């Protein structure tokens, strides 16, 4: 189950959260009220060059000092605040969501080509594995994630997402089947600029997790989707693949198809499968991954989960259901269904 929806305004025009709230709520029967969440890109123009580090605290007074200390070791906290939430009878507040605007000191990670990102990634892994009661669930620049256990409209109202604006929105309505519904397990999953919403199950999770962990990532959210954000970070940011090539690694063509390709393409696809075989994802899935300059949607190789795309002007929508897209945009110029494993990419053109 699960319902996903994503939208990008390729011209970079910002939309508030009202539309996505309505669209996701339309897919309520794809969820169970145990988790919903939203991601918005462009949420913090006033802090756009700081990393927005979002933390769930079990008990602020007990653990926040430890997190502050960890952050201060690696850079400067420009500003921090409790994320405003609004009482909602249908959401039991189990964590206190907090956001830090943080500037890492690149001099502290001298051997890296992307020292700031590496510092923030290290901090996320370190805090999540060593500070009990604190969970970093989002860490990108100018990106906000809002998630909790509850129905889509309740989670939206709890954070009042209509008060935020952005040029990319992701929404996810969760029907947890393999792990308990908890705040950390709700989607989107984020690391640095990567945010992921996912419908399905990744049967290769055991392989993917052990692969990604050998590159220094730590899976702490008890759910399969988390690895997708890390895999994109590894493949695209650290290994320099384009998002198209990353999708070829995660949902590669079948060998029979590769065998029939012309030589150049065949060499490329074979090299990707051989090198990134452990990153390949199996099982039924439809996924949308966002990064600051675009979104990419794709499904598993035999398309066991639905994915629909719609366009209207500069806007590209990707969702589990056409009806959800039409809630946001009744007049669509085109509606298409991508083939299994084929990426749909919407790039920012500003």
């Amino acid at each position, binding site marked *: 189950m699960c319902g996903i929806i994503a939208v990008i305004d390729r011209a970079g025009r910002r939309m508030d959260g009202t539309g996505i709230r309505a669209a996701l709520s339309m897919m309520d029967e794809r969820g169970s009220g145990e988790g919903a969440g939203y991601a918005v890109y462009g949420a913090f123009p006033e802090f756009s060059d700081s990393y927005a580090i979002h933390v769930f605290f079990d008990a602020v007074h007990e653990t926040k000092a430890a997190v502050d200390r960890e952050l201060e070791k690696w850079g400067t906290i420009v500003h921090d605040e409790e994320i405003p939430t609004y009482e909602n009878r249908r959401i039991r507040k189990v964590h206190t969501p907090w956001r830090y605007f943080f500037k890492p000191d690149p001099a502290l990670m001298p051997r890296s080509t992307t020292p700031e990102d590496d510092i923030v990634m290290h901090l996320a892994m370190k805090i999540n594995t060593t500070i009990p009661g604190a969970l970093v669930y989002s860490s990108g620049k100018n990106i906000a994630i809002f998630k909790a256990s509850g129905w889509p409209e309740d989670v939206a109202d709890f954070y009042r997402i209509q008060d935020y604006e952005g040029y990319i929105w992701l929404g996810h309505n969760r029907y947890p089947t393999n792990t308990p519904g908890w705040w950390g397990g709700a989607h989107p999953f984020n690391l640095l600029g990567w945010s992921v919403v996912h419908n399905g*199950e990744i049967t290769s999770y055991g392989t993917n997790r052990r*692969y990604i962990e050998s590159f220094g990532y730590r899976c702490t959210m008890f759910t399969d989707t988390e690895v997708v954000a890390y895999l994109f970070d590894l493949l695209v940011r650290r290994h320099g693949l384009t998002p198209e090539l990353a999708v070829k690694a995660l949902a590669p063509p079948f*060998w029979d198809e590769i065998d029939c390709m012309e030589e150049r393409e065949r060499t490329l696809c074979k090299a990707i499968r*051989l090198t990134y075989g452990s990153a*390949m994802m199996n099982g039924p899935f439809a996924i949308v991954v966002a990064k600051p300059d675009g979104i990419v949607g794709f499904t598993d190789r035999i398309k066991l989960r639905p994915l629909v795309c719609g366009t209207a002007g500069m806007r590209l929508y990707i969702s589990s259901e056409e009806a959800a897209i039409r809630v946001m945009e009744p007049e669509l110029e085109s509606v298409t269904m991508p083939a299994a494993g084929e990426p749909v990419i919407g790039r920012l053109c500003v």
Partner: protein
Amino acid sequence: MTIGSVPVRFGITIDRARCMLCGRCVENCPYDVFRRDEDTIHVNSRKCVACHRCVAMCPRDAISIRQRPVDYRDHPVWTEEVREAIYNQARTGKIILAGMGNAKPYPVIFDRLVLDACQVTNPSIDPLREPMELRTYIGKKPKKLEFRYDNGDISLETTLSPNLELATPIMVGHMSYGAISLNAQKSIAMAVKETGTFMGTGEGGLHPSLYPYQDRMIVQVASGRFGVNIDYLERGAAIEIKIGQGAKPGIGGHLPGEKVCEDVSCTRMIPVGSDAISPAPHHDIYSIEDLKQLVRSLKEATSWQKPVFVKIAAVHNSAAIAAGIARSSADAVVIDGFRGGTGAAPRVFRDHVGIPVEAAVASVDAKLRSQGIRNEVSIIASGGIRESADVAKIIALGADAVYIGTAALVAMGCRVCGTCYRGLCPWGIATQRPDLVARLDPEVASKQVANLIHAWTLELSELMGAAGINSIESLRGNRDRLRGYLLDESTMRVLDVKPVGA
């Protein structure tokens, strides 16, 4: 005081009413159990090894074989096996030889691991309707790829090392010409060609009649260097350096002079009738650095066109050794568990030295991952793979592919009598005696081996489909798909699997 004879192990009876005195039992038993005298078949049960050749060949089903008609006084510690070994050694003063794999009833870890399947939310995949990919590449892989992007055009900068392409992750391991007959090797060669996989030559060289199958053969370089020259290396699809063997870790090999006939002598490049001794260590390898030199010189000799594997016996520090091997430029590490078969080994080694391949593979895989190099080297598991479920389980524990040995022999007719070291194998497999060798028809036996590999491959795809996996890459190292059933906690920690119900 004399020891006296030990009781017979197998008692044979002939149902006289059924016997038609055809004499086939006499002809078929190379151990001289049967003798014909006028109109009676006489039996000497003491010589029987329970190879079942007579039973299989008797046209009237007149022969029955029973184990141990005489019991020792029961004792839980001083078992009959222990006592008999002492009697035999007290008499001979020699090392006891044994064939086939470990015969001790150690619990089999495989049998305490269960595979997982999908229900509802993650649908299983039907291998009859959906593609299942078992194709496996063995060899070095780069850690990451480099690309060049020229206005929209992507080209690959990284050059891949040569890899073996397997249609199924099941290969047949190294059994040398000498240990097994040429007909047995031919049967396997035809079978691996048919099924798109590979076999090992063992350390016996490559017989010219196998040249047509050379692109399916992994040639072995062991400490004795038998049959090794540049022509041999160039013929193989890959080269394997054998450091150790699961059935006898820490010791070398010995093919007795009697087995070194004309043909074996040419193939091994040693004089007729001379003992072929491979010492325990390679005399040029005393460290990982030395191993690296050999790996690299074999690569250099073959213009870096052949993958080079290194085979070690599963021992407690396999993980550290494998990490060294992975950094030595080797393309694959082969881990041979303590249930691996053998033509001949001291019984004490076969039964008591080494560790199970399940634990060794799990720890090697974990170590290579902790060092971030797992992806760059392949892991081949061997020694005690008995069925397709074992293949699935060991891959989930971290192997890329398996070698089978005994299973392939059983497919050819071997009854696991464990008497291979005597060179009288009644099925024509582990023998060089021409009349016995002739009993194995390579056409027929190869079909049986190919059938076995094919059947296991089908079962493997069914198991993967049930787990919602349609490509072998996603089963590899996927320990989430395994659960330990009545396994002790410490073993589960080594295997890194959860218990059933968790």
